């Protein structure tokens, strides 16, 4: 088996290529930093087992963020047999920097030239004969999206897997003076530096050879020492004074870029026409004044569509569930099943799971809208647009991307915070991201706002999002005020070209989310519904049809006093909220089970839930408190696990959970106390 790693600049199409080979459906989008984890897949090609590893994008082998560290560590490990350097051909100058670094590693490198279609569209051409001559590595044009060149690329990989040195190099170096160096490196390496730097490299290489015999890539290590790379200095210290490296780092970078300019000059034809469309769009979307209103309008539109189009489609799903429910009921009765079993299936499972599935259309629309935003290239712009505001909160605009992703699902949003450079920013972002209302909270708002504020349902649901954003901003602001150590959070993010969202990408994105949702309905929500039914229908006296005598009621009543001050002093609601920690939708499914409503999202179901809630004295103000509490308290078990993993600290995770619970309690307390005095 051979291990092949994909590495390349962010957003150059590594994951698209990975998906094309392995049939995986990893998330792809048009902004830098989508992939934050190393992902593996395998397939067979011409009788060889190939293990393919997709790595997070990086601009260089010097690492600054967590994800870049992942890529660097893996590429430097002995696991890799062949490196595929994915190069965005439409941005050759930038991408070749990493290529030159990779070639210096001394491992077999194959260059995959992606996005050739864009190059053509711009009226440019790349000299595919000259480029490999200059790099000393095979260059294979591919189109990850159109799945072209895939076999040729893998074929090249198989051919090069044992090749240690470069392919024959043919250089002209018109601009360089004739070298007087004692070695003529031009036949050995693609990247040859000026004589002065080459002398230095020799010096360090010699020291390394003496101190650490048996290594393979002395030249690369010598260069890294010369570039003052801390990690390499720590691992391979040499007796040469480190001051000797002063200033060389810049020169090494500059000479690499000089060579890249030479390559681009020779290999890229027709550089006249540039991509003007992106600049024209940016004139509006990143406008000095209009960019923020435009962004707010886009987000308002996203949620408007989620509520209106989603509600329109919802009717059909309801009919389906209703018929299914009726069918099952009559079937079970006809089969002579016992009452508890019928109750478990109809009042427990169908009420709980079925009730949640009716929200699928809303969630589908929300993710469709987010997929379009992500694949168009707008995400990075949002980081730019929000940088001013985020700067006042002590964060860079980049931290807004995880927050925006949080509208979809908190778990990937928290993982996206890996792209932030320092840990303090990452923790802060992780703390506020859960306040961004995720799709799981949507059913709670839709249901309760339509129940208690039928005329202003959308406004009520909107305001939850606004409260969430407001809380996130407030918390970030307070922390930045308390935080004495002033770190400068400088924004640095690539703005990719805009493109029409690809049908395939959007489809995969939305389908994966819909699948997750259905899976959650079939597992977490299913289990939660069964457990709910059990604790509500069994009490100290065994099976009971009187819920007030159940275990659930007893647990609820025990905690109720804590929730009375915030308008949630009903044992049913308390039980639903506790169950909601497994997943937020469970708050809704639990209510359905609690009040025995088979189709909670239909008008008949709503009427009976309304009647049930009114009977226990749960009114509009309580509904607001419930929605706010759901917005702010711990999103779900999966989020807690993710925070634990990403922060690496159990204590910090516990603190953030307590903090969220406290925030939810305080906010609903304030609303209830103020509200009940005003009304």
């Amino acid at each position, binding site marked *: 088996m051979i291990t092949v790693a994909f590495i390349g600049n962010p957003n150059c199409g590594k994951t698209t290529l990975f998906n094309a080979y392995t049939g995986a459906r990893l998330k792809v989008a048009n902004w830098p930093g989508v992939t934050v984890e190393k992902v593996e897949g395998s397939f067979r090609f011409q009788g060889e087992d190939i293990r393919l590893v997709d790595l997070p994008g990086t601009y260089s082998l010097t690492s600054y963020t967590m994800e870049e560290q992942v890529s660097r560590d893996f590429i430097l490990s002995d696991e890799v047999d062949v490196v595929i350097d994915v190069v965005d051909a439409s941005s050759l100058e930038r991408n070749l920097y990493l290529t030159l670094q990779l070639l210096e590693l001394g491992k077999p490198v194959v260059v995959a030239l992606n996005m050739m279609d864009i190059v053509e569209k711009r009226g440019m051409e790349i000299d595919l004969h000259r480029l490999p001559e200059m790099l000393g590595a095979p260059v294979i044009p591919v189109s990850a999206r159109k799945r072209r060149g895939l076999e040729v690329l893998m074929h090249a990989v198989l051919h090069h897997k044992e090749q240690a040195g470069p392919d024959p190099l043919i250089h002209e170096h018109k601009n360089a003076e004739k070298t007087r160096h004692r070695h003529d490196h031009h036949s050995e390496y693609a990247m040859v530096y000026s004589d002065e730097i080459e002398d230095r490299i020799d010096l360090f290489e010699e020291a390394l050879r003496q101190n650490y015999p048996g290594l393979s890539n002395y030249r690369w290590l010598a260069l890294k020492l010369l570039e003052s790379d801390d990690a390499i200095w720590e691992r391979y210290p040499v007796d040469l004074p480190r001051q000797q490296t002063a200033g060389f780092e810049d020169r090494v970078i500059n000479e690499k870029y000089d060579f890249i300019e030479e390559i681009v000059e020779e290999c890229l034809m027709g550089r006249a026409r540039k991509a003007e469309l992106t600049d024209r769009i940016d004139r509006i979307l990143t406008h000095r004044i209009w960019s923020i209103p435009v962004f707010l309008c886009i987000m308002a539109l996203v949620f408007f569509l989620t509520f209106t189009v989603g509600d329109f489609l919802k009717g059909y799903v309801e009919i389906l569930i209703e018929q299914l429910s009726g069918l099952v009921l009559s079937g079970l009765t006809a089969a002579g099943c016992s009452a508890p079993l019928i109750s478990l299936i109809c009042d427990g499972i169908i009420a709980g799971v079925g009730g949640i599935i009716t929200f699928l259309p809303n969630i589908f629309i929300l993710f469709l809208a987010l997929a379009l935003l992500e694949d168009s290239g707008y995400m990075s712009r949002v980081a730019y647009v929000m940088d001013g505001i985020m700067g006042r909160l002590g964060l*860079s605009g980049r931290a807004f991307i995880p927050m925006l992703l949080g509208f979809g699902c908190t778990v990937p949003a928290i993982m996206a915070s890996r792209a932030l450079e320092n840990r303090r920013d990452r923790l802060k972002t992780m703390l506020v991201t859960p306040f961004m209302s995720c799709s799981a909270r949507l059913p709670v708002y839709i249901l309760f706002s339509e129940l208690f504020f039928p005329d202003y349902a959308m406004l009520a649901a909107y305001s939850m999002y606004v409260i969430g954003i407001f809380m996130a901003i407030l918390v970030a602001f307070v922390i930045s005020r308390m935080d004495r150590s002033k770190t400068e959070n*400088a924004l640095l*993010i690539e703005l990719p070209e805009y493109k029409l969202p690809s049908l395939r990408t959007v489809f995969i994105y939305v389908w994966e989310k819909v699948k997750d949702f259905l899976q959650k309905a079939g597992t977490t929500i299913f289990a939660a519904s069964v457990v709910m039914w059990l604790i509500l229908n069994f009490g100290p006296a065994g099976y009971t049809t009187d819920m007030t005598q159940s275990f659930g009621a007893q647990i609820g009543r025990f905690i109720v006093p804590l929730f009375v001050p915030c308008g949630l002093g009903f044992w049913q609601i308390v039980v639903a909220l506790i169950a909601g920690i497994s997943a937020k939708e469970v708050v809704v499914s639990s209510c359905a089970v609690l009040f025995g409503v088979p189709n909670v999202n239909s008008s008949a179901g709503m009427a009976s839930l309304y009647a049930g809630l009114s009977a226990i004295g749960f009114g509009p103000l309580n509904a607001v408190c419930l929605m706010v509490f759901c917005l702010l308290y711990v999103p779900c078990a999966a989020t807690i696990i993710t925070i634990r993993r990403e922060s690496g600290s159990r204590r910090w995770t516990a603190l953030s959970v307590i903090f969220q619970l406290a925030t939810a309690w305080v906010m609903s307390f304030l609303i209830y106390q103020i509200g009940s005095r005003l009304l």
Partner: protein
Amino acid sequence: MRLNNGQTGRSYCVQGLELPQDMKRRLGVLGMTKGTLLEVMNNKSGGTMVVKIRGTRFALGKHITENVEVAEQ
């Protein structure tokens, strides 16, 4: 002059970067070193800008742009 005073649509040549070593390196690998040509694509009043460096657009925060010395081309 400093980059944050750069005007949209004009090109500038980097004269020097007065930034922490780490940030200097990050910009360096993106090809923004002494002598690099930049084109200002957008400049918000705060100093957050969009700059084209070697064919790619980057958004740079004001902490960066304030500390980059440039000369107009």
